[in-house]
């Protein structure tokens, strides 16, 4: 699937994914490190806030503690009577505005005339000073927590906070100090001195703790009772553990246990009641065993981070979108020309070179490619046009050449045997031009009954000019030949005629001879041509000896000698052009005179036709696949002599 997707898709996807990942990484790192900084900050703040509030509470509680402790000291060491006790107690309540009640509860009354219990108590109610004596019997103060606990523990104690008068609205706490007297060396428990204070101030202190909008402080007693809480119905009616049980929140219970054990800590906490996330700092109020917790609302504290995070996230997404758009534009600028070119290529492949290509809009690689493609298309179009034209003209020339070939061939005698009624000689010839038309030629004709003229020639150059020159040469030879003129003279005349108007400086090699068909005598002249072979019966093929002479048409006033030879009955003369001996094989070796002579020797005795085809086969076999470089012409005349003579 991926493989077949477009470049644009791959480019955008891979870039978006990788930059998205990088962004996420940076984003997460940024978020968590900011959060860490904030949390550290909050912890510091939480700690100092909680400690300052706890200290405030502690200061008030410990200053309250001093009063009953001082009184205990007095009762343990001084002597007093009932009136004194009452006066001191009254003064304590009167002169200490924070104290709303005080009691001295004796285990047994130290004064005569009293029942065993004695517990005078002064307290403020509705601005008035009231006095009462508590009873000590069953249901009385002996089993009250404020009396029994310090007595049993032998140390001062803060009571659990409680409402005045059972159902009242005023929340109180009582500090109870046990006092003793040493009687005959034995420390004897005497009773308990209490001072009660209203906890309104404490509730105010804790209630004043507001952290942003939803953060708050909570004070719990030693039993975990909620002394202050934003939810009024929980105050003094529920413990932190009850709350934990109701909400099934074991973590809350664990925090509560740490708090009542006097530990401090900073922990994250999710309220199961409101689902709100908080950080809680808790710290003990050591003198009373109570504990203060301040809840810092996580959502509000991280709101700035969250806002920043949102901004970063939006910027990131925006950036990624911009990146994608940019990439899309770039990718399209690459792929659009490619797509166009792909379609154009298909069109061109179908042969439509007129397909429209867009103009390159930029100088980038795609633009360069498009430009190159455009010029390639144009060149291709031009080329094909030119090719079409060239082909057309070449075809015309070829057809003309074919006609020329036919004409040239028709110039040469090609009917064999040419003189079927003459038994004293036999002729066979073959020509094979290297191109459509060539410069080689052969000819034979009877000038009278007993004289056979024969010629073989090779015009310099090849092709059309050579063929025209050849035609002219052949015509001249034929026109010039007549009985009584020696072959040397004939060539001399032909030379002279050819030189006239020979502006192209062409020439030909010609071997010309005349055979007396009665005697076998041959007169001949050579104009620069290869000497033919004489094939005598039973002997090796030999060259016809003589002067080679100069080429015909080359030198003005050139004269040619006439040689003579005699053919016996059965002898043959083999004439050829250099196309035979200079045929080359793949190793660039020439067919050579020797190879020809050997072959002729082998073939002597055969009829002229077989002899020529034998040589032709040998040459073809020799040159094999090599193209024929030069025209080839061969002619054999076999003299049989007179049968009737």
């Amino acid at each position, binding site marked *: 699937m991926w493989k077949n997707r477009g470049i644009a898709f791959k480019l955008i996807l891979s870039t978006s994914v990788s930059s998205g990942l990088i962004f996420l990484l940076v984003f997460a790192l940024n978020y968590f490190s900011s959060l860490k900084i904030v949390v550290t900050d909050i912890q510091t703040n939480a700690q100092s806030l909680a400690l300052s509030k706890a200290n405030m509470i502690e200061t008030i509680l410990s200053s309250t503690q001093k009063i009953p402790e001082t009184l205990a000291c007095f009762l343990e060491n001084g002597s007093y009577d009932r009136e004194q006790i009452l006066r001191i107690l009254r003064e304590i309540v009167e002169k200490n505005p924070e104290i709303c009640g005080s009691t001295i509860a004796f285990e047994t009354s130290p004064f005569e005339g009293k029942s065993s219990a004695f517990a005078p108590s002064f307290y403020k109610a509705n601005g008035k000073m009231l006095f009462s004596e508590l009873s000590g019997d069953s249901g009385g103060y002996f089993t*009250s*927590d404020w009396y029994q606990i310090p007595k*049993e*523990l032998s140390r001062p104690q803060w009571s659990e906070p409680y409402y005045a008068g059972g159902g009242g609205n005023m929340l109180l706490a009582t500090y109870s100090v046990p006092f003793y007297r040493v009687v005959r060396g034995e420390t004897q428990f005497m009773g308990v001195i209490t001072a009660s204070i209203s906890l309104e101030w404490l509730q105010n202190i804790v209630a004043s703790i507001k952290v942003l909008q939803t953060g708050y402080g909570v004070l719990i007693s030693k039993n975990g009772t909620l002394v202050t809480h934003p939810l009024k119905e929980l105050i003094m009616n*529920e*413990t*932190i*553990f*009850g709350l934990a049980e109701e909400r099934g929140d074991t973590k809350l219970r664990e925090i509560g246990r740490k708090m009542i054990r006097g530990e401090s800590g900073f922990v994250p906490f999710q309220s199961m009641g409101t689902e709100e996330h908080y950080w809680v700092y808790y710290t003990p109020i050591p003198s009373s065993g109570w504990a203060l917790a301040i809840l810092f609302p996580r959502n509000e504290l991280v709101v700035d981070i969250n806002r920043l995070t949102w901004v970063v996230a939006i910027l990131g997404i925006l950036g990624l979108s911009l990146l994608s758009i940019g990439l899309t534009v770039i990718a399209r600028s690459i792929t659009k020309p490619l797509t166009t070119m792909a379609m154009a290529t298909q069109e061109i492949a179908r042969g439509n070179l007129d397909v429209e290509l867009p103009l390159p809009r930029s100088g980038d690689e795609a633009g360069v490619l498009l430009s190159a493609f455009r010029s390639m298309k144009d060149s291709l179009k031009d080329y094909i046009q030119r090719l079409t034209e060239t082909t057309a003209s070449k075809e015309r020339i070829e057809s003309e050449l074919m006609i020329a070939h036919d004409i040239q061939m028709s110039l040469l005698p090609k009917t064999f045997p040419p003189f079927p009624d003459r038994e004293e000689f036999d002729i066979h010839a073959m020509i094979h031009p290297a191109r459509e038309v060539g410069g080689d030629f052969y000819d034979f004709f009877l000038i009278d009954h007993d004289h056979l003229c024969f010629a073989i020639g090779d015009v310099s150059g090849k092709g059309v000019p050579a063929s025209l020159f050849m035609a002219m040469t052949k015509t001249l030879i034929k026109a010039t030949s007549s009985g009584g003129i020696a072959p040397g003279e004939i060539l001399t005349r032909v030379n002279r005629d050819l030189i006239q108007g020979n502006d192209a400086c062409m020439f030909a090699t010609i071997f010309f001879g005349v055979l007396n068909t009665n005697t076998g005598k041959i007169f001949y002249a050579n104009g620069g041509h290869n000497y033919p072979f004489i094939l005598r019966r039973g002997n090796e093929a030999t060259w016809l000896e003589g002067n080679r002479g100069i080429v015909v048409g080359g030198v003005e006033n050139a004269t040619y000698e006439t040689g003579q030879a005699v053919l016996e009955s059965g002898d043959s003369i083999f004439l050829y052009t250099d196309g035979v001996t200079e045929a080359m094989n793949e190793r660039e070796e020439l067919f050579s005179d020797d190879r020809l002579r050997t072959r002729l020797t082998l073939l002597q005795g055969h009829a002229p036709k077989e002899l020529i085809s034998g040589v032709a086969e040998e040459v073809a076999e020799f040159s094999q696949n090599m193209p024929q470089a030069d025209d080839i012409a061969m002619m054999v005349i076999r003299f049989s002599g007179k049968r009737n003579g």
Partner: protein
Amino acid sequence: MRRTGLSILLCMLFVPVVVAAEKPLKKASFLPQWSPQAQFAGYYVAYKKGFYKDHGIDLTILQGGPDRPPLLFLTEGKTDFASSWLSTGLRWRSSGHKVINICQIVQRSALMLIAKKSHLITTPRDMDGKKVSLWGDEFQIQPRAFFRKYDLNVETIPQAFSVNLFLRDGVDVASATWYNEYHTIINSGVDPDELRTFFFHEHGLNFPEDGIYTLEETFKRDPSLSCAFVKASIEGWVYAFSHPDEALDIVLRFIEQAKIPANRTHQKWMLNRMKDLVVISDSPGSMGRLQQTDYQNVSHVLNESGVIETMPEFKSFFVWCDKDVEK
């Protein structure tokens, strides 16, 4: 199985409702032995759901409290029916008051002793020489019998209504009830595994607790009233146990009316524990029946403890309303 048992019981109990609804309502009053809480959920639920009216009773539930001993109120004619412990009922009966038990709601003793493991108490013997806080009167009978049983010499000190002395380690062992103080201790931050509990019913001292009492005279005058009250009350309990949330709502409303701080979590615990204490058998019809063996065990211990001198006859003390009586 238990639920099935309850349902069958419920069906049986609803049968006479149609008949009873036609009759004019009889006025009656009932005094629980403590202020409103889930310990008396059955009565409040029966009241709110109209079960008493269905049984022809126009009932007034009086507010109980420490200053209102139910059997005293009963003998003084201040209430027609009262809830009280079996041991208290026996004490009153043997001291000549003609009080009778007409329904034993709580079959299993909820009273217990509780210690912190940190005070190295794991067996009853470990309490020897320790400081134990005890409530007064009938609440002391089982603990003292327990101390005798295990031959313990303990220092007892009086215990009031709070468990703060225990929480602050002023005593080694404290008295508690399974449905109330135990839960208060847990919800003061002590984990259950930090505590060692001694249920008296596990130490051969099962004292069935809350039962319904009336005067012999009241019963004789109109047995159908007493029986109707018992039936409606049992219906109330069955309904409360099968509809705990609704029952809690009802109980909490009574607590609020009495201007006592209401704590749903605590009441929920209490109602669940009451179910453990009231429904001890799957067999329908067993609810409310005082078992003679329990009775004999309690009266024997009371006698041994010197609380009672004579053991009243079971049949004269416990009167169970069967169908004959109602007719």
